[in-house]
């Protein structure tokens, strides 16, 4: 019962705490307007290069942009607490770590889902993309899976915040890495073999592929393997993130470096 309370209430309070700085004036430009302009930028680059359809860029970038809330909000799990001098108080508490960390991930997933769904809707309306109504429930599922998967990567990012000072630079670098490797804008067939191999084991690649097929009218059953692969990655990244957090927490205690900023 205590674990459930820590998971639900701890997560909710932690997320609400984000809004002491993630105000309306930051949320709207960064998470509502920017993804739409990223979509427009790449759709027009695509038109200029005569490479892919608008739909390719709308779907790819809408899902890929979910990385911004997933990476940055998760990094606040450590960096935000460190900044407010509350990290020590949290880590000294006997609270079980699993609900403590994963409770904080749930609102981040919800936020990422909202960002991707809004960007997909706005991008489709602006560029006149027709997505079959029957595909929308399956698309929603794919977006949720993509958000969970990237939040797992965000957990690793958060853990690294126990070691490095510039979490914002790292988050931006991971975002850029996902922009190149996931096939959001570059057809995977155009990537060199080694990059294609990397794209297979990072968040978003499979969900973007699945979402594109669904937007073309495919049934959920035909992309279930892609959704399954993304779910496997979500599990792997979340586990790796959790283990890394525990490891670096232990290291931080041993070397008295938890509050290093």
């Amino acid at each position, binding site marked *: 019962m205590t674990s459930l309370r820590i998971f639900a209430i701890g997560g909710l309070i932690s997320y609400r705490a984000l809004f002491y700085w993630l105000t309306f004036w930051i949320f709207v430009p960064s998470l509502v307007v920017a993804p739409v302009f990223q979509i427009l930028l790449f759709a027009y*680059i695509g038109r200029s290069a005569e490479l892919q359809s608008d739909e390719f860029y709308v779907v790819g970038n809408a899902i890929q942009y979910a990385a911004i809330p997933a990476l940055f909000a998760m990094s606040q799990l450590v960096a935000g607490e460190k900044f407010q001098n509350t990290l020590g108080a949290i880590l000294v508490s006997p609270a079980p770590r699993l609900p403590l960390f994963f409770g904080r991930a749930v609102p981040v997933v919800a936020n990422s889902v909202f960002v991707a769904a809004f960007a997909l809707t706005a991008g489709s309306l602006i560029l006149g993309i027709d997505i079959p109504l029957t595909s929308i429930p399956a698309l929603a599922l794919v977006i949720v899976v993509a958000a969970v998967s990237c939040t797992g990567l965000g957990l690793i990012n958060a853990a690294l915040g126990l070691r490095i000072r510039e979490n914002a630079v790292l988050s931006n670098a991971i975002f850029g890495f996902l922009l190149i490797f996931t096939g959001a804008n570059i057809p995977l067939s155009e990537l060199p073999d080694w990059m294609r191999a990397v794209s297979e084991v990072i968040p978003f690649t499979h969900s973007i592929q699945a979402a594109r097929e669904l937007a073309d009218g495919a049934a959920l059953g035909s992309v279930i393997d892609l959704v399954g692969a993304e779910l496997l990655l979500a599990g792997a990244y979340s586990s790796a993130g959790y283990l890394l957090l525990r490891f670096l927490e232990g290291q931080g205690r041993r070397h008295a470096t938890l509050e290093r900023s």
Partner: protein
Amino acid sequence: MKALRLLAVGWYYQFKMISRSPFEGIGQVLYPLFFATVAFFIFRASESPRTLLYAALGSAVMGMWSATSTTAGNAMQRERWHGTLESLVATPPHFGLVLLPITLAMATIGIYCLVATLALGRFVFGIDLTVEHPLVFALAIVAAVTSFGALGFLFAVSFVRFRAAWALGNLFEYPVWLIGGFLVPLVLLPEWVRPISWVLAPTWGMSAIREAALGGSPLPDLLLCLALGGVYVGLGLAMLERVLGAARKRGALSLS
């Protein structure tokens, strides 16, 4: 003469400081490289007549703009956080002479982005970086940096009433990349967008750099870029008077 000295010393001091900042220095150089890489892959895969050199120049100027837009909006706010805003405003020289070198220094970081992007294009993607008019090319870069800094100055003054000025600065990153014609020819954009592009100095800076590199007539673009930069500084100074006057009257200069 004193004003020029203040501008030069301020620029040098701020440039050294920003260069050593992991976010404003290293981060601002690194981040646009990801977008440049995507652009290189897209143009390399396409059958478009636009060359990889076209993409390389566009991506390089994208980086220059990023270095300004994401930081300049927050330039005055940053002094506020540091607790130095009141002292700077109270100094005898005009506050514009203190603020302008800050945004110019931010824009100068863009030269790192330009070099890094062109190096990426040359050494990773094998792009032939032959520049037709090297001297005018260099002048066009200086003009672009100056006008970007001037636009940054206008942003810094305009956004000072917003606590989240950095987010507003960020907001202008993608739109200017798009409507400045960096990687997308303006003719592809809807007609109503074009007049907006024309009043943006980055549009003309990009055009001057591209004309100088590919062999065209860059001088009109270069002059327009500089002229617009001058207009931005004029507007910024006029707005600064009002902002500082209002802040003094309300005692709200240090509020954050």
